């Protein structure tokens, strides 16, 4: 009985301020869209029916990539295709362009924005299908019952909810130590990417710190990691138009054959992009090589708790970590 949108009022604000006013005015009944690629699914399935839809895609202020000296600033409504093709980003942060290029399909990347990509909701098929689970305000996690199908679900931090982050750019931004600029009624705050994403323990109904009325305006990536070595890989069922089962994003600096600094994060294993700090720790100051690869493989998935059908993600994480290390040689 779905595949059909409800009717709503569509607003096309002319400025961020106006968008913020509208978002504030409508509160829970309002919904921001940029590319709409995540939102329209919700609307068509009729599981979310906001009264006011506020389209920010046309806001020039929020669009484009700029070199600001010590960092590169990406406007929130910059499309994934624009990011993929951007020379400045390709030169400084090929990790991000590689991740953006792996999102969905060219059509979706042409419309989907970076802001929407990091703010998108989880893809747990029970939740998306409208089941009244914890995340939807109910009192069960349907994906974690004895009969549940949970091959796509979480290995970590599954507190009443086993959903995972679906974003491909998320782990890359966490690895790159990006900062998220959020505006609320004219007030600006800055949140590190790692804190931007939140797990069920913090708030089970949200995936990010964004609350109704917040607008993500910009993503800043410090030049710290410009020119570093990088590795991105995404494992999915098909090679296009599909979410990651597990993805890995790494940036590393090598001096004299030794790893001087490194950050690694995985997507698809937890509600937020998961930093692999144990892998980072064992790499730092050590020689790149077979031994490091072996150790990374062993510790990458430390502490993972498999559900009924996602055991395979554990060796997969280990092997991806080993591959990331291998790429440095």
């Amino acid at each position, binding site marked *: *009985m779905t*595949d059909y949108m409800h009717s709503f009022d569509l607003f096309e604000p002319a400025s961020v301020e106006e968008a913020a006013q509208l978002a504030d005015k409508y509160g829970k009944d309002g919904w921001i869209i940029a590319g709409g690629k995540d939102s329209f699914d919700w609307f068509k399935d009729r599981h979310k029916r906001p009264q006011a839809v506020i389209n920010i895609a046309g806001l020039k202020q929020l669009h484009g990539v700029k070199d600001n000296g010590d960092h590169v600033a990406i406007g929130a409504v910059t499309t994934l295709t624009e990011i993929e093709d951007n020379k400045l980003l390709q030169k400084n942060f090929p990790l991000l362009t590689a991740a953006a290029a792996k999102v969905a399909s060219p059509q979706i990347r042409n419309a989907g924005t970076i802001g929407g990509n990091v703010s998108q909701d989880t893809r747990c098929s029970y939740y998306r*299908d409208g089941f009244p689970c914890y995340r939807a305000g109910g009192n069960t996690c*349907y994906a974690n019952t004895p009969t549940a*199908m949970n091959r796509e679900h979480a290995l970590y931090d599954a507190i009443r909810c086993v959903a995972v982050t679906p974003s491909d750019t998320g782990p890359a931004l966490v690895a790159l130590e990006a900062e998220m600029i959020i505006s609320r009624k004219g007030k600006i705050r800055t949140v590190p990417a790692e804190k931007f994403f939140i797990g069920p323990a913090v708030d089970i109904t949200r995936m990010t710190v964004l609350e109704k009325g917040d607008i993500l305006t910009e993503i800043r990536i410090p030049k710290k990691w410009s020119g570093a070595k990088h590795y991105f890989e995404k494992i999915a069922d*098909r*090679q296009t138009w599909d979410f990651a089962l597990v993805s890995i994003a790494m940036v590393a600096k090598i001096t004299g054959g030794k790893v001087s600094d490194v950050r690694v994060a995985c997507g698809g294993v937890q509600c937020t992009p998961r930093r692999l700090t144990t892998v980072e720790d064992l790499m730092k100051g050590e020689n790149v090589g077979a031994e490091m690869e072996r150790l990374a493989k062993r510790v990458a998935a430390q502490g993972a708790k498999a559900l009924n059908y996602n055991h395979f993600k554990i060796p*997969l994480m280990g092997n*991806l970590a*080993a591959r990331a290390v291998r790429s440095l040689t």
Partner: protein
Amino acid sequence: MARAIKSPSDEVVAEKSRYRLIGTPFRRVDGRAKVTGDTRFADDLRFPRMVYVKLVRSTVPHAKIKHIDFSAAESMTGVIDTLVGKDLPDPFGILPVSEDEHALAIDTVRFVGDPVAAVAALTEDVAHAAALAVQVEYEELPTISSFNEALKIPEPRIHEYGDEGNLHKKVSLQFGDIAEGFESADLVLEDTVYYEGNTHLAIEQHAAVAVPEGEDRVTVYSSTQTPHYVHRALTKVLDLEPSRIRVVSCSNGGGFGGKSDPFNHEMVVAKLALRLGRPAKITLSREEVFYCHRGRHPVLMHLRTGFRKDGSMTAQHLRTALDGGAFGSYGVASTYYTGALQTTTYQLPNYWFEGARAFTNKPPCGPKRGHGTPQPRFALEIHLDKAAKELGIDPAELRLNNLQPENSVTANWLKMGTIGLDQCIEAVCKGSRWKERYGKLPEGKGLGLACGSYLCGAGLPIYWNHMPQSGVQIKLDRSGCVAVFCGEAEIGQGSDSVLAVIVAEVLGIDLADIRLCVGDTDLTPVDLGSYSSRVTMMVGHAALQAAERARDTIAKAVAEHLQVPAEGLVFADRRVFTASDPEIGMSFSEAVVVAEALFGTLGTTGSYTPPRAPGRYRGAGVGPSPTYSYSAAVVEVEVDPETGVYDVNHVWIGHDIGTAINPVLALGQVEGSVYMGLGEAMMEEQVFRRLPKRLSSALVHKMPSLLEYKSPGFHDMPEITTYLIETDDERAPMGAKEVGQGPLLPIMPAVANAIFDAVGVRVDQVPIHPELVLKGLQEKAKGRLPRVGPGRFPDVDYGEPLVVPKQLCAQHPVVNWLAVDRD
């Protein structure tokens, strides 16, 4: 001759064809309209005063309907009418033995998505909102989710009929001497194999528009593969004379078997159009198409085969367990098909087939491309790969050494035609450099071989009758235009083009001289529809006959006019002329004028009924065909041992097509089959979620959407090299066999076999998700059996086997097989 085609631009015609048009690539007759958007699909139709209809579908898997409350829906502005089960009380179903469906559920719903009520409104928006507002109160019943559950829980029954409890159909057929066969074996192999269910995924969603006319008369335009069967079902359900109902099959945007049943929505719009006296239209959403389903049955199989040292088979015992979903659909036939075509490729003297189909509370399964055959074919071909390994014989060799001979009769009494399987195997082995590369590629890379065989039209119609299975009428007049009428349904496979080109070939005219009128039960003679790969064979024969009759009539008139012998006349280049002197003759349209003047108004008919099959046992009706197509494929894979992710790099596929009527169209069918086959091998699965009991036990789709139902994209497609093998079968029109379904069959087992060659892991199930390969690799690393697949086969009581006497001259050509007595 094997000709390798990689793309339509390749030189596809190696030697000069025997025909003027046939055998040379030509633009499909509906091609231009399709690419320019001129084709009107059912959903493109609009009529004045039309109302829009939506179905209210069950939200629970199994329940009694207690109460339906329309008050909220009816109070909406624009809502015009509602319909419930008792408005259409007569049951229907594609097979006469399982007429178990109602247009709208009478008192019981049997799966999530089962239609309960309908609403008609002035706009689609209102109809949608009203359908959502209908409140249905259910009293829930226990839910059956699988074959095993159906076996264990005979009560309550999902249907009041069927062989026992919740088992819909049981079959046990013994051919030859099973015990003796196994005794004479040097090696006995057993395998338990699982094939997950999947769906057709045609791009066009089903749509139907009903237009009332005068009193008690209605036309239903529908995206259906089988207008004739829809006509029959409507007659029954609407309780109207057949002559009052007209069904028009609009061009289908793909069918693959998903539009070959009569459907609820067709009955509902017809009823509403009649009741309201205004046109009524319905277009299903993608979600609803997943509920209509009729797709591939999930089948668990157990295979036990005796082999001699040389690789020949001495006996085979195959058991199948089909999860049928909530209704009969084609299920009885599907059950037989999980055993019927097991004998058509390699010699199998003694064969015991047992099959059973269960009812479960899921959308009904039915025919999907290959109908019931891909599952046991997958089992057989991976089984043979293991036997080859065990016996130390090359898998290609093992197959080539044991091919079923041409013109023979199989253990289950199927009569073979030409068999080009040897050429198919040789072509793909040569193309893939099998001999040099199989078993010798570096770890991680592998080649796999598998074969298949399929019907060229089911021998028997769906309902018993003595009438032709296909009819064609030709009308000719002084304009020179030749109008061809036939009940066939174009579903994208190119049936219109085949029909047109055969007539054009015989009459020596161009495709542009032909006007087609197809798939219209009022205007065209009956053809049973686009299923079982029957159209080229049956419509082709009927068209050939009608065209030859037209040619002979015209020849007679021209001969008299020119005072030359009719036998010496040639029809070519839009002219009719004498073979001895092409100058003596006239244009085709002049020839028609001469004939019309001599004989009066011109028209001819042609029809086709397949030959009787030699089998005389109960169940012998499933499997016979005028002849069979053959395919072989080699698949090359590259497996990443760290992730289990594998890429299919190249597929070489050979297909015995008899004669390629249009090589480019045939190539499209082969490539489409490879694509669909890879989807089934690698990722496609129609799976269901069962919720815990305290949460109603609801059994629902894992998101009925195109995103969640994973089907490959462009990036997943490998390079394909196709070889069309022409064996020119005299049983077929112009020698042409089918190409729509057969080429799918070898793909899934070839992928599994290639993975084994690459990393030594056996995955005895499809789809083969990367994590299964990874699991196999982990087992292998631990020194355990590197096999991933289903465990035990359940204990099914298939009943006393029907012992079918052995064919006296089995394995040998039967000279006059038509003369075998019928009891």
